[in-house]
């Protein structure tokens, strides 16, 4: 702690930079955040960055190069708490859908036989495949409410808790007409909550961008979807878009 202010570092591996951008997007709270916390490193927002000891490291993006593996390990060594910040860090992101063989083939399709001299690419993986992760904030991108809630709890020294329910729960609170009744494949029952059911609120089925919910009731949810006429294959294929490397576990639950 520095003058009682926690030292925070925000790091970006491979992703769309949406989670870091979301912090910059806390326009009205940004000055407060920079006042309440000692932001040691945040490459998107400042150039006087220091790589030292940290209380909390927010890591966005998945690991896709060898350089990132060593960067991530260095962050872990310096930080008391490491947070997987966003879907890419937590589940590997949409880029983690390919298995090793598919990844090799597709890399070749995009870059031909190009040899890279600056760093070696590796198949995309979430950060917990390389280091211990203390907290997960999924979402593509994370929600502002979830982030600010998380941050204020951290700043006060009260670790935040998980969101244990699927999107459907909030969707019901929001009194939406269930899209499944209209024959649309909505992943709300199988997706972790945190977005406020924003897509169903707009008549758009959930694509599962928070990743799979850790929920004992998954079987019942799956049966519900099957009852509505969707095949397990179809559901898995749709879930695979955002579940990353956590799809296998999620499917085991089913």
């Amino acid at each position, binding site marked *: 702690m520095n003058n009682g202010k926690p030292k925070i570092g925000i790091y970006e591996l491979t992703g769309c*930079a949406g989670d870091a951008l979301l912090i910059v997007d806390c326009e009205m709270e940004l000055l407060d955040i920079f006042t309440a916390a000692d932001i040691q490193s945040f490459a998107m927002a400042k150039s006087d960055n220091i790589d030292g000891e940290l209380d909390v490291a927010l890591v966005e993006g998945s690991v896709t190069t060898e350089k990132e593996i060593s960067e991530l390990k260095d962050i872990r060594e310096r930080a008391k708490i490491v947070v997987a910040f966003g879907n890419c860090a937590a589940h590997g992101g949409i880029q983690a859908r390919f298995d090793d063989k598919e990844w090799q083939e597709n890399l070749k399709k995009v870059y031909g036989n190009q040899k890279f001299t600056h760093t070696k690419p590796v198949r995309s993986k979430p950060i917990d495949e390389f280091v211990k992760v203390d907290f997960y904030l999924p979402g593509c991108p994370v929600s502002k409410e979830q982030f600010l809630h998380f941050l204020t709890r951290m700043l006060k020294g009260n670790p935040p808790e998980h969101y244990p329910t699927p999107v459907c729960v909030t969707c019901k609170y929001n009194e939406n007409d269930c899209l499944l009744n209209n024959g649309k494949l909505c992943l709300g029952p199988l997706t972790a909550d945190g977005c406020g059911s924003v897509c169903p609120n707009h008549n758009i089925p959930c694509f599962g961008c928070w990743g799979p919910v850790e929920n004992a009731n998954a079987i019942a949810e799956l049966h519900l979807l099957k009852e509505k006429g969707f095949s397990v294959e179809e559901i898995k294929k749709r879930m695979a878009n955002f579940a990353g490397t956590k799809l296998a576990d999620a499917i085991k639950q089913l």
Partner: protein
Amino acid sequence: MKTISIDHLTRVEGNGGITATIDGKTVTEVKFNVFEGPRLIERLTVGRTPEEDVSLAPRICAICSVSHKNAVLRAMEDALDVNVSKKIIYSRELMHMGEMIESHSLHTFLLALPDFLGYPNAIAMAGDFEFEAKIGLEMKNYGNHIMKVYNGRWIHGENAVIGGFGQLPTKEDLTWIKSRALQFMPFVNKTVALFCGLDYPDIPEDDTLYVCCEPGNNEYGFWGDEILLSTGEKYSKYDYPKVTNEYTVSHSFCKRSRYNGRPFSVGALARVNNLGDRLEGQAGEMYRKYFNDRWKKNPLFHAAAQALEIMYCFERIPQLVDLILADREEPALIPYTTKEGTGTGLVEAPRGTLIHHYAIKNGLVDHSDIITPTAMNAEEIERYCHIAAQKLLDEGKEDEIRARMDIVVRAFDPCISCSAHSVEIERVPETAWKDRLLELSAKKAPFFVGVGTEDRSDDRAGLELAARLKEMGIADVYTEKDIDSIRSIQEQRPIIFLDAVNMGESPGKITLIPVDHVLRNVNNSHKFTPFIVGALNGAQIKNSYVLGIQPGTTDFGTEMSSSVKEAVQKVVSALTN
């Protein structure tokens, strides 16, 4: 050799770095690296439904997510023959303006302004320039608000879909957007005056080719079905590969583009250069007041162009709201059926032209091609950084190189997720050329091309060297007379030009420089430039080098000076041992 490297370019979206290599008095190489790994997004869209792709493809970039959304929608609707109503098009334009305002105000006030005012970041700047920081944040917030109203959330919202929107905003939401735009106008005026009036440094400046979408109807705008070049040439969107000619490089996961072997700039400055005289209203007045020839060749004017576009958006938004509200009856969504087809969508993202192209077969995406603005600007970022580094080195301001390159990169506002963070400056030893030459030859036998004039003493060096290499039995040695054979080289083998190059060094100094970089900076002892440009295509240029020997004298005569002779001998020994 010395390398200046900014290893983590700060205040740009994403992950990358830039390295400048200095050999004596010459900046031999500048490389813009993207460290961020490959995400293979195009490949991820293959085998998915068009609807899934509308949700997946924008994940390329958060700060351009609405542009990606509009590009993928335009492409898919083109492929599936979906004709949306005027109201939907206006609604998408309004949503697009939200992103323009958000992105431009973030870049101008919070990322670029601290550079020009000399602060490490916006927070540090905010102490002395509270008003500017606040206006920047307020505008950004307003832009995000528009996107949220339309898309459910401002980053990766899903409300815009093929055929229209899941749900359209209420009249109250729209009138609020309109009245807020009107309230902003006095601040928008100040924004334009601030950024158009800034004293931008004149390093780097150079002639530039600008590319943007042609909105049609002689209007300003952010999309169209044609590509417009600053030369006046136009291409149909379906012919985009003729303009972009993508290829990969070994030092980055971000692909590159060139038009007729020439790199080009896209973005707000390109749009203002190509379309600025179409601006009307106050934006038009401001354009006529501030635009001048320096805007045509100095990338630092990007911030000024962005400020003009902010004004354009704030003037257009009330008009759009009126147009949308006049058409209350049109449905939010029109039905369509999936069919086979191909489609292309062109939009102007805040950072420049964005192209999505898809082929649909059996209800699924069979092929996809996405070309991002940062991929197109990557070559320009290297070119301008190189010009700046050489110019500052020439002026004896080596210690300013790092900071200036950082500012140049930032001027392009690259969102590296478009596939950068760092400037590295490296000074290499006298003998660096040798290691590099051997490294190049070890991979694939190069073609050697001797260049020069027989009767101008040291200017013979290249021809002499070529003759000696031939004597030593090295294959594939040409001279500039064999121009046609050189032009038809298809193989991916390095082409090494042997030439006397005036680098301002002592006679006999040898340097190995990528051709690209010779084209940009070094004053040659003869007309090297047009000869090369006409002969090579973009990929060849990237694979070509000049082995330069500093001449002593290039007066008439057939005898070379002793130090140049020695240099020729050094190269011959290096290659034949």
